[in-house]
């Protein structure tokens, strides 16, 4: 069956909402995970620099 791109008749908004909400949730989850790890590494590295300066 041939389509216009992203046109599903009267149900278009419902289908697009489904995909949009899913995308937002999943992307947020991914971004949070990646940023969290980055922040943690930075935080730990900073603490070690602080500690090293204290001992030397």
């Amino acid at each position, binding site marked *: *069956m041939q*389509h216009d*791109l*992203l046109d*599903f*008749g009267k*149900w*278009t908004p*419902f*289908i697009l*909402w*489904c*995909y949009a*909400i*899913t995308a937002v*949730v*999943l992307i947020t*989850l*991914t971004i949070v*995970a*990646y940023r*969290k*790890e980055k922040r*943690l*590494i930075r935080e*730990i*590295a900073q*603490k*070690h620099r602080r500690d090293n300066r204290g001992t030397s």
Partner: protein
Amino acid sequence: MWVWFHKLGSPPYFYRFSTIVLPWLAVLTLILFSVGVVWGLYIAPSDYQQSETSRIMYVHVPASMFSMSIYMVMAMASAVTLIWRIKLADLVASASAPIGAAYTFIALITGSLWGRTMWGNTYWEWSDPRLMSELILFFLYLGYMALNSAYEDRRRAARAAAVLALVGVVNIPIIHYSVEWWTSLHQGSTTRGTQFAATIDPSMRYPLFVMMGAFAMLYAQLLLKYTRCLLLDGERNNAWVKEMVKQHAA
């Protein structure tokens, strides 16, 4: 196999292993999602009964399927935590919870939108057993996360949450059965849902499989990532973390 599993249980090895695997998983997830979405939205035909709305299936079915499986993973990891006291198992359980909750949330939203297209005017139909079970599962995830974050001591949090996860997993079949019984009282049966996933036309089955793969890979990827975060947080004073951070900075 067992040796490998055992090795994976040691934090530094796990960290190195996940560093290698993660980029591949990320690429694979991206590919699967792109293929799945394009296939599902554009190429796949619309179901002759449900018209175009069957396209919602490609997100709803994998999300609801994995929302349940992730809880099972959590329960198994919790059992391992309680029996063998393997630190990593606890982290896997804790890291799974937000992902599982998000999948459940997606399943609820898409299920309700899909239902709206079929039930007519309501977004929420109490007589749909799957949505009900999904809702209760969502509550279980929320309770697990609330308990997990209520304890300050990581080790106690892990064990308390593990007990809760196991209690929850014993309850899931009972909840499922009770909801099924309850909705049968209201005689509102629905024709939608996962049961036709196996019987549907191949032209719709393949994009569904692709999306299932995508959701699975995303879960694996996020699981590794969240576990790494918890690991770094918990072991920040250990030698291997210091070493790793130094390498990272260099």
